[in-house]
Every structure is written in structure tokens, then in C-alpha cells.
């Protein structure tokens, strides 16, 4: 049945394969549910990731309970690790079954090469013979970008070793070829000023396993939320023109009013020891060899 599912809906269920993980898109799951091959699937997760290395090692022949680096466990009909953070165990089991069949049938391993090129920076593509690196995105919304500047200062002392353990897959301040796909951690700076920014933040959330709010504007909203306190007489004609001409929301919001945030690095700009500690936490969580 699962094989049939893939054959019937390859364009929507095709998982993204980055060399180590399959990532099934949320849209694909929604489409699947509408297509109803498995009406029992209860909830749709924001993201599902299958660790293909473990699939290979286990041979896809017997059910095993495998502890993933994220602490999720799946022991149903599967030889692979599934992380489905908003689905229940039935869904995780179902996904595991789907992917194990996909693996066994030798189908849908990866996107076509041209699609892969779109999804990944050619300079950052993962290779199987390289150790796993933490896949990171860095994003800025409404703020003064002081934490981004501070981050570029940290590169003075850390870039050489971070390049060995971190893949900067999305960081507009430093590169043109960016990809949102398959982020382990998204660091997000700034407050949310509009519906379009909120959608962008949600898109980041869907593509990242963990989201860390960076700096005061993301963590508390201040000082970017200052206009929320404006009295009506302060909203003069000129301010009103901007508010109505562009898609300004009625109120500026801190990040966790828009999306779920896993961690916060506070400060204006961010406190460096706190950022380094948080980064270390995620390197350890993803079992990245920091001495690579």
C-alpha cells in the first residue's frame, strides 16, 4: 500500500534527501491526507525526518526501537528513526512504514539533480563521506541587526572551527545561495511587523527542527514594538501613509507570539556567552563531533 502511495503521488510525497536525512514536507502530508490512503493518520506533524544512515545499517528487515539524536523513539514496523514532533505514535509508525517501503523498493530516495541544486547551495551540499554537521539558518526580521553584526564578529575567532561542524545553509548576510530545507536549528533575530513576516517565520518553523530567538527584539519585542504604545495622536499622516501603504500589522509582535520558540538568547545585542552555550547545546543534541 505504501508503495502504491508513492507511485500515485510521487510529486507530493517525494521526500527531500540531503545525503543523510529524508525530509517529508508538510504540504505533502496534507495532500496525502486529502488523498486518503491512510485515513487513520491522526495528526500532521510540522516536520518528519528519517535518518537514512540508520535505515541502511539496520537493513530494513526487522522492527527496531531506535533512539534518535533528538530523543524521539519509534519502534513500530520500522528500522529507521522518525521524528514527528506534533504527530502521535501512530503517525510516526505510519511514516516509518512508508519510508521503509520506499527504501526497500529503491524509489524516491532523492530529488532529481536539478531539484537538488535548487534545494541546496552547491557549496554546501552534504556528502556521505563527511561527518554530519549541524545545519543552521540565520534570519533577521525587524530590528537593528546588532546580533547579526555581533555574530560576524564571533566569526573572527570561530569561523575556522565552526566550518567543520556547522553548515550555514541559510544566512543572507553572508551568502546568495541560500536554502531553507532541512535546518537543524534556525536562529531568528528581530520582531514581527507584518503578516508577510509572520508567514515567513512560520515557513522557517516548518523547515527547522529547533528555533532559537536571538536578541531583545525577538525575545521580548522591545524596542521594535515601541509603536504599539503610540497614542493615536502620534499616528500622524506620515506614519499612517506607511502603515497603510505597506502591509504593517496593527501590532509588532515578539517571535514567540507568532511561532513556537525552543530557546532564547537574550540581550541587546545577544549575550555572547549565552549564544555560545546554546550553540554548544545543539551541537551536542545532534551528536556533532566537535573535535572533527
Amino acid at each position, binding site marked *: 500500500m505504501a508503495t502504491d502511495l508513492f507511485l500515485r503521488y510521487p510529486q507530493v510525497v517525494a521526500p527531500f534527501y540531503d545525503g543523510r536525512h529524508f525530509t517529508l514536507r508538510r504540504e505533502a502530508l496534507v495532500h496525502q491526507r486529502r488523498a486518503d490512503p491512510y485515513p487513520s493518520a491522526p495528526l500532521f506533524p510540522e516536520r518528519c525526518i528519517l535518518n537514512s544512515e540508520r535505515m541502511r545499517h539496520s537493513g530494513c528487515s526487522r522492527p527496531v526501537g531506535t533512539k534518535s539524536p533528538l530523543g524521539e523513539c519509534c519502534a513500530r514496523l520500522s528500522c529507521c528513526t522518525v521524528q514527528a514532533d506534533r504527530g502521535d505514535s501512530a503517525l510516526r509508525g505510519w511514516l516509518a512504514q512508508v519510508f521503509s517501503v520506499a527504501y526497500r523498493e529503491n524509489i524516491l530516495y532523492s530529488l532529481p539533480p536539478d531539484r537538488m541544486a535548487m534545494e541546496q547551495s552547491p557549496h554546501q551540499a552534504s556528502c556521505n563521506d563527511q561527518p554530519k554537521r549541524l545545519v543552521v539558518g540565520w534570519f*533577521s526580521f525587524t530590528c537593528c*541587526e546588532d546580533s547579526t553584526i555581533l555574530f560576524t564578529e564571533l566569526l573572527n575567532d570561530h569561523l575556522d572551527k565552526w566550518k567543520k561542524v556547522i553548515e550555514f545553509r541559510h544566512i543572507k548576510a553572508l551568502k546568495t545561495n541560500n536554502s531553507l530545507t532541512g535546518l537543524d536549528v534556525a536562529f531568528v533575530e528581530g520582531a514581527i511587523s507584518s503578516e508577510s513576516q509572520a508567514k515567513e517565520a512560520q515557513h522557517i518553523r516548518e523547515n527547522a527542527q529547533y528555533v532559537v530567538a536571538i536578541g531583545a527584539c525577538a525575545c521580548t519585542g522591545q524596542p521594535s514594538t*515601541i509603536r504599539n504604545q503610540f497614542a493615536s495622536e502620534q499616528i500622524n499622516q506620515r506614519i499612517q501613509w506607511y502603515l497603510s501603504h505597506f502591509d504593517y500589522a496593527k501590532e509588532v509582535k515578539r517571535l514567540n507570539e507568532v511561532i513556537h520558540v525552543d530557546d532564547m538568547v537574550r540581550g541587546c545585542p545577544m549575550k555572547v556567552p549565552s549564544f555560545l552555550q546554546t550553540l554548544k547545546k545543539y551541537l551536542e543534541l545532534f551528536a556533532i563531533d566537535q573535535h572533527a
Partner: protein
Amino acid sequence: MHNRNIVIDTITKIEGNAGLKVVIEDETVKDLQFIIADYRRFFTTAVRGRRLIAVPSFLSRICGTCSVAHLFASLMAIESAQGIAVTEQTKALRRLAYDGLMIRDHALHLYFFVLPDILGIDSILDITDDPDDFAHTLLHDSFDIKRLGTDITNATVGAAIHAPWPTVGGFLRNPEPRKFPDLIERLEAIRPQVLRGIDTFFEWDTSLVRNTDYLALRNDTRFDFLEGDVVNSNGKRIARSEFKNYLQYVQIPHSHAEGYRFSDTQEDYLVGALARVNLNGELLHPRTREDVAPALSAFPSNNVYHNNLAQAIEILQCVDDAIDVLRIIQLADEQPVRASARAGTGVGLIEAPRGLLYHMAKVNEQGIIEDYDVVVPTAQNQINIENDLKDYFNENLDKDEETLRVNAESIIRAYDPCMSCATNFLKIDWIRR
């Protein structure tokens, strides 16, 4: 007829968010929009009703990269409004902190944002780990240069970003002079690395030439970022308090930031390092002038890419100037100069890394801000950027789209635009385009 649109949703390797939209009809640019896409925070409205003492620190949050520039411009505007004359020690320490800011800020732009354009790569992240690779050498030069700039500012004003020590009338806390000898040693040691960068940007054979007007601060005694009058290419000289009267505000429908024309010429104009070196090149530090004579021969220049070269030269200028300040400064245990609050209006007009930065504070007799105004460099350059890009596209439409995109981004990047700065203000005198 061949019509097409070229859209760059997000211009990368700049500070903040901006995009570009070009409409081409019959192989002519019909419309071009450089879109500053950062959302406004209306800080100048927010400071109205606040006590003056709290305002400079708040306004340093306008921009993460040039926060020291906004801090100093705000301090100077408020001090002017209150009739406060700061001590020579305060002036020297501000000058020193500013040298550190320029060194760090220019190096970030030149090496992290522009260098990949020279090397033909996407990012500094793609530079190899091979120590024999020249790109690797330049990248590690940038680490040393940036670190030194940051350390100078840290030692002088407490932090390179949102500095805590400067206050109205002086300093809340004086720096520790025991840190100065080490800084002098490091500044001397960094000169060969800075010169290597200047050579690299001098040898970068690329150009976009367009006649334009230039505006910069000029202090006739030295190359100065903090004191002087405004001059333009025609020799017009304007006192800082009069500067705003010469600007025509232009509302740009597609941009979150305003634009400006210089009313004396009714033309677009450029501010920033290119303007400064064009107009004040002969005032550079003697050591700098001597060591960069070949590169200086390129100025005055109408090639916008030479804004990068001018920034590289200014790094050396700031290194040499900082050495001078550190060698002569004798720190006394000073307290900030204070005065009873009085009603008044003051202007702080300085050279931020990207060009002229104007702060105006109107204060009432209780020391409360009644009105505040800011004009930032990127907003002033916005019309110039669009006009440069129109020229570039009209002359190069035979090139493939990818080349056009890459070159358009590199032209914008040459201006070192900062969208965080550009989107915090509202100006007067509406002129609809």
C-alpha cells in the same frame, strides 16, 4: 518588441532587506525600483516626550553596525541644543572610538560582503582552508582588522555595539589607559595587512562611471568624521545647522525609506567614503597618503566601485589616526559636563561609515524632547543607486540575465547600504514622484 522583468527579491550580503525590480520594454529600462524592504520602527516619533538623557542610548538601537555613529550624532545634537561644550578629552575619546568603528565596519563590508565578488565565489564560507590561498590570507586579515577595530571601540566606550559609557556631556566612565600601549602595537602591526587589502581593491578592474554630486563633511585641518561643515563637488559650503534646509525629501512609493535631492543642484548625490576621499583626499593622514599614493591617484573618481577602495583607504587613515590619538592622550578623571535644562534646538551632523548622518533634537525647558529628526546616508543614496542601476541596465541589456543580476547586486553592494538605518525615520516636505 522584447519585454521582460528582472526581479531580485532579496539582495544578499548587505545590512538589512532590500530588493530590485526592473521593467524592460523595447530593450530600454522602463522602470527600476530599488526597494528598501525593512519595516519602519518610527524611533524618531518614539523619543518625543522622553527625557533627553535617555535618548542617545535608545537611538543607538537604530542600527547594529553603526550604533556608535547614531549615539554620537544624538549626543552632539542634544549637547548643541543644551549649549554644552564637551572637553578636549571627550572629543579625543570620541574620535578614537570612531576610528575603531570605521575600521571594523568598513572591514566587515569589504571582506565579508564585497570580497566574494572579487573572488568570483558566493561567500567567504567558500574560501578554502589552505593557508597558501591568497583568499584565505585576506579573510584572516579581515579577522585581525575587525577584531582590532572592535577592541579599540570596546576599550574606549565600553562596547562596540550600543556603547554604555558615553553620555550627554562626556563619559560616565573613563577608559583604562593601561590598554592603550597594546592597541598602539597592534595598530602598527596591522598596517601591512590593511595595505594588502587596499592593493586588492585597487587592482579590482571593474567600473560603473556616472557623473554625480558628492557631499561630505570637511574640517580644513584634518580628515575628520565628527567635525566640520558640509561641502559638495562645486565647492558649496554649508554649516551643519543649515544642512537640512538644502535637502528635498522625496517620497518613494515602492520603498520603506525616503529619498533626497540636494536642492542647490536639484540633482541626485552620493555620500560615503567615495565622497569623503573625493572631497578631502588631500587631508588624509601623511603616513596614509604616503603609503597609498598609487591608489589615491584614482581619486577624485566617478566610479562607484571606488567607494570600496575609498573605504579600504579610510581603514588605514583610521589606523594612523588612532595611533596618533593613543600616543598623545593623557586621561584625567573627568565628569560629564552638565547644564540646567533649557529650551533649544541642536544638530549633530557627522560622517557615519556610509556617509552624512544628521540628527536634530528640539528640547523644551524641562529637558524633554519635543521633536526629533534623523537623515541617514542610505536614504540619501537611494535615488543615486537607482540612477546608477538604470544606466547600468540600459548599457548592458545584451548581457544574460544572471550577469545582470550579479552585477546589479555588486553595484548596490558597493554603496554599502544599510536598511536598518534607512527605515526608521519620517521626513517633511513631501514631493510625490
